[in-house]
């Protein structure tokens, strides 16, 4: 009963915040909407008993990605400039595509009716986080995807620094 209430409340708050994130002309407000949506996702993870990923969601998405987005919004606009309209003139087509996609996926879920077809879910083992940690470094488990992810992060780090720095010449031009 309580979980149902928490789920519905979270879902409503999350979707309203997501709408703010895509509709607001002021991009700083849009980024705040994104932050609320990310927190809502973390609440859903807690409801699904994925506690480690709920914490990771807050630390990685809210703590790092959202802050990066706010920084780059502030770095890429002239001080004091008005926001102006932030939507393309073709937005009705975007609405059509997005609406159609949502309606079709929702209808698909209803047609499949997973709640009737699937057996009741088993309980999550209490030591699932410990098992996840062991599986990530287990040669018979998921050590290869884990290492590939770390190489990808290293490559992204070096690439981001190289692209954003732009060399000595760009640096001089910026400080002119």
């Amino acid at each position: 009963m309580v979980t149902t209430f928490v789920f519905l409340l979270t879902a409503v708050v999350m979707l309203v915040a997501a709408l703010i994130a895509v509709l607001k002309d002021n991009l700083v407000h849009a980024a705040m909407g994104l932050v609320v949506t990310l927190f809502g996702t973390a609440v859903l993870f807690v409801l699904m008993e994925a506690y480690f990923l709920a914490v990771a969601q807050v630390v990685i998405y809210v703590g790092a990605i959202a802050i990066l987005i706010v920084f780059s919004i502030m770095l890429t606009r002239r001080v004091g400039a008005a926001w102006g309209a932030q939507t393309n003139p073709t937005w009705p087509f975007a609405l059509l595509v997005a609406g159609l996609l949502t309606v079709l996926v929702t209808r698909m879920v209803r047609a499949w009716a997973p709640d009737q077809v699937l057996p009741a879910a088993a309980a999550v083992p209490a030591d699932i986080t410990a098992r996840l940690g062991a599986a990530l470094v287990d040669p018979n488990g998921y050590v290869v995807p884990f290492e590939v992810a770390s190489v990808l992060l290293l490559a992204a780090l070096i690439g981001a620094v190289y692209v954003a720095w732009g060399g000595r010449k760009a640096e001089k031009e910026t400080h002119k």
Partner: protein
Amino acid sequence: MIPLSWYLVVAALLFGIGVYGVLARKNAVAILIGLELMFNAVLVNVLAFWRYLQPGETAGLVFAVVIFAVAAAEVAVGLALFIAVYRKFGSSDVDDINLLKW
């Protein structure tokens, strides 16, 4: 327990909102915000299927962890690109990036 289909419907709505953001927004960073919403919808789906189909296995959680890493890499590279573009064009609207147009 909350039915699986509720999670799927919420994720579908979130994904749809993200698609709208990606297609309708002018500013490159706002497009990235839409992309993040879509990533989150996918994460909710992955974890919902893990919880309701294989809660005893770690495969679903590992999948989510890898999605986290890829999302972080994507945002870092994307924002670095936008800052480089802003330096060159003085704007981060995707309409203004027209080097390949003639």
